[in-house]
């Protein structure tokens, strides 16, 4: 087989991460199941960082293994985002795990490492099978993670819902893929892309069914409307750091494959689907932002806000598909992961200090209880809303300008109007933090080191990219994302 003569060294980071994940897994078995195991957490973070370094130094020129596995700037940047994201999730989890005795710590860490591995495979794949395997590694690990507090009814419920609906999503994706395979006889996205113009002319309906089913299936993962319904319940029930993971790494990796599949496979019929994506983006922004207005629970609020954010990221895809729109998306992804992880780490902290509740009123008077956390949270929320001097503003401004340049004025206006609406609910939280008295029995919050670190890193990123966006934009503009 051709594949055996390929440069397997391209896969070094994945192989190393897989090995380290197995190592973590094994050490976990050897040390008993119930203990607190902070060293495994540290080892996991170390593994992720080692992998990140390998991504950077191995094969900087890129390459591919057959038609199935790609290493290009697009994959590399996404992998870095994923690895850093998972590392931050683990960092914010460590204190949470120590406080929740019903979680088996070792398993938690190793499963998170496997999700990182799956996500890396996803963004590198150029073949439907590879892609699906990566996706399922992430999905199945996520189902387990969502139900990790196995004696907690919300968590269990979240897990079951996620399994059933996630399974439906996988079915959607496979169904769409089966049409493509049936028509082309190949699973390679390159070959599918090459055959696409001719195929579309001959089998318009079948190609569109396949495209839309795949879009719907991926849409589950990124929580776009009308495939968003699992998100609020799962986000609410899952352990908060897992929610953070689902809202960031899992979602962004899914965006990675949407871009990959639609660029490689369906680019030639862009005109046929751009409008559909634009419409879905518009509906997603509207529904997400409007429902968020009514929410009184912070995790559900973040779920709907996350749905709205998914709508924003869809805008560039709907507008134009080129190197520059990918730059815009990746910049927004970086901003998004920073502000969302930052916000979730503070939500973890606050809810743990308020008896695991996540109502909006748990944030009352946070400024008095922990000024740094309150200010940081305010900045994350303002960044999510898109206020200047934050990374979120730059990201959104880029998307606006792109939409305008691409003659999608109506979409840009919907985005502007809905993001104005979003200020309303983000300000609800800010008002609680700064303009409400703490509850009588609330104490000053002691911030654990892990959360402190995550907040500081993400805060620095959010503000720095808001003031000096060129740090990343210059770098990204120089990339030829897809080889």
């Amino acid at each position: 087989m051709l594949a055996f003569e390929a440069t397997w060294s391209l896969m070094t980071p994945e192989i190393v991460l897989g090995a380290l994940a197995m190592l973590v897994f094994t050490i976990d078995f050897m040390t008993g199941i119930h203990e607190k195991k902070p060293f495994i957490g540290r080892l996991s973070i170390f593994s992720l960082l080692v992998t990140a370094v390998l991504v950077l130094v191995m094969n900087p020129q890129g390459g591919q293994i057959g038609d199935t596995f790609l290493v290009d700037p697009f994959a590399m940047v996404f992998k870095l985002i994923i690895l850093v994201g998972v590392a931050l999730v683990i960092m914010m989890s460590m204190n949470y795990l120590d406080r929740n005795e019903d979680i088996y710590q070792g398993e938690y860490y190793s499963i998170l490492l496997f999700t990182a591995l799956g996500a890396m495979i996803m963004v590198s794949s150029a073949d439907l099978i590879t892609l699906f395997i990566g996706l399922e590694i992430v999905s199945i690990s996520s189902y387990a993670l969502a139900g990790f507090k196995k004696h907690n009814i919300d968590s269990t419920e979240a897990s079951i819902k996620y399994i059933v609906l996630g399974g439906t999503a996988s079915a959607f994706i496979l169904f769409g893929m089966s049409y493509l395979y049936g028509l082309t006889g190949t699973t390679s996205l390159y070959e599918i892309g090459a055959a696409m113009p001719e195929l579309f002319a001959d089998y318009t309906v079948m190609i569109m069914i396949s495209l839309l089913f795949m879009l719907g299936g991926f849409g589950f993962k990124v929580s776009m409307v009308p495939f968003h319904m699992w998100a609020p319940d799962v986000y609410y029930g899952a352990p908060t750091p897992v929610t953070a993971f689902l809202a960031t790494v899992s979602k962004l990796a899914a965006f990675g494959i949407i871009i990959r599949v639609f660029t490689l496979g369906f680019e030639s019929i862009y005109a046929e689907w751009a409008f559909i994506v634009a419409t879905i983006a518009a509906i997603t922004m509207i529904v997400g932002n409007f429902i968020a207005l009514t929410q009184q629970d912070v995790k559900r609020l973040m779920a709907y806000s996350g749905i709205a954010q998914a709508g924003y990221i869809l805008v560039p895809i709907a507008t134009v598909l080129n190197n520059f729109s990918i730059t815009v998306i990746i910049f927004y992804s970086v901003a998004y992961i920073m502000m969302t992880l930052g916000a979730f780490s503070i939500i973890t902290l606050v809810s743990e200090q308020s008896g695991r509740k996540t109502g909006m009123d748990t944030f009352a008077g946070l400024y008095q209880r922990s000024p740094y956390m309150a200010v940081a949270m305010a900045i994350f929320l303002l960044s999510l809303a898109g206020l200047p001097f934050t990374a979120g503003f730059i990201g959104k401004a880029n998307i606006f300008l792109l939409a305008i340049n691409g003659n999608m004025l109506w979409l840009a206006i919907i985005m502007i109007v809905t993001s104005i609406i979003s200020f309303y609910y983000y300000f609800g939280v800010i008002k609680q933090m700064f303009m409400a008295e703490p509850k009588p029995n609330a104490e000053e919050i002691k911030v654990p080191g892990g959360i402190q670190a995550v907040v500081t890193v993400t805060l620095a990123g959010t503000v720095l990219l808001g003031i000096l966006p060129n740090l990343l934009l210059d770098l990204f503009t120089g990339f030829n994302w897809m080889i």
Partner: protein
Amino acid sequence: MQLAWLIPVFPLIAFLILLFFGRLLQEKSAYVGIAALALSFIYSVLALFERVGGETYTYVFEWMTFGETSLTMGYEVTALNAMMLIVVTVVSLLVHVFSREYMHEDHRIHVFYSYLGLFSFSMLGLVLAPNILQLFIFWELVGLCSFLLVGFWYFKPEAASAAKKAFLTTRIGDVGLLIGLVLLFNEVGSFAYADIYAAVENGMVEQPMVTAIALLVFLGAVGKSAQFPLHVWLPDAMEGPTPVSALIHAATMVAAGVYLVGVMYPVFLASETALTVVAYTGAITAFFAATMALVMTDIKRVLAYSTISQLGFMILALGTAGYVAGLFHLMTHAFFKALLFLGAGSVIVAVHHRQDISVMGGLWSKMKITSVTFLIGALAIAGIFPLAGFWSKEEILASALLNGNGFLFGLALVTAFMTAFYMFRLFFKTFTGDYRGAHDDEDEADGHGEDDHHGEPHENTGFMTMPLVVLAVLAVTAGFVNLPFIGYPLEGFLTAGLNLGDQPHGELWLAFLSLAVAAGGILLAWAMYYKGSISEDFFAAKAPAVHKLLLNKYYLDELYTAVFVKPTVAVGRFFWEMDKGIVDGMVNLIGRFTSTSGRTFGKTHNGQLQTYGVVSVLGGIVVIAIAFVLRGYFG
């Protein structure tokens, strides 16, 4: 001028110092803020002098590359912003000084000063911006700071909701501004003022597009400068500490809107329609706000409506090609409005943090400095010769008459009359007659009451009176920079190098007419509230319905709640119910699917799993169906 970038940096440094060390400094925080603003002021004066003798100075650097275009940041010193720098730094500095005493009992004084620093930084940054994107960035920051400051006494529920209202109402205007900016960028390919001016003057932008852009940008100004119909936030913003009101009303927040129109003036000039809309918005705002000011009994609310009304004057002037008149009034108004607000603050402290003018009175003999300076402010805003307000208001009337029409001019004239009337109603009720607040000290109007402060009102210390005196001097003299006898020097300065057409100037009779109208208003107030020859309730009794309508601010708040707020939340609810309920019913209709399999997961209490699955599948089918119908794959 090369060092002009330092002007906003000083308050920023003060902000950072207070953010990190405020708790240690406590009351000394005030001096950090005052020192920073003093430095900013000195540099502003230097910048102004250099600019008067020189050319516009611009410095830009590349900030963000966006595809092939790159966006720049930087600063520039033009005639307009050199003037604005002075206004902002003077008022801000005096507010800083005043607050030292006003806020000294508040244990969060360091937070207060840090916000003030950030506020001044934002406004100065806004003024120095060489392109409209940078202006927008600082514009948003200004809004955020006003949110923080208006809600400073968050333990008062009204303050917290006023803060939110201020921020969110102005955001409605910001939608327009942002869309306008994006359209402008699309047309011109640059955010820099110079490029925009050039493009508009060369007719590069098509006519309907110019109008659209101008109107959208103007919407931003309407929100920020509290013009009708988005003015509702400003009176509520009175819940903030009084020095903040002075800052918001005179030099920062609301001035930003007028400044925006001023700085984008060539775009407005290019569109007849836009100018007309601007003029009518201004005139109507001026008129309506003045009518509401007639009946308010809260000292700060009267001033708030007078601010809205005066801003209406400025906008009216700008809408009738009176570029200099509008900006001239922006400057003079900044001084006397700051004076009036700080004077009101001084009064409020003296009467133990109450704001209702019906429990004041007789303060003239008890607080000499406050009274005299307040009188000067009132005369200035009423437009009495030779105070600052006289000169600028006369120019506004001239431009409404010469470039507007009889209706605009009439409205402006009636408003000028009402201005004089309500200001002196306020003055007489507060400072003359007998003190009416001696015996009911127990009902504290404010969460601020301290028991050791009972007793007769008396004059405040130098920290509070010194700013009043300085502002009073400015309220008298600021008008002299554009005297007709010496050839309108301010006009020459502001219009040099710009292609703005001739500025309207009134003839001598207009000056006398405006003076007579102002005097008439004062006289009527005197007759009603000092002499008592006309009953105070004369008008209220004659037209109770009108009185009630005015007292309830034309029911606009209620209207907006019913028309905008509730529907928005209702839409949210509706989508949510769709997510939760309606869909559920639909599924029940489809079959017993839910009821049978529902038992399996019966214990789940928030949301039916099957429902989600069905909705997703149905949703997918609907998406596919719509897509197919739209693209016509079936036909």
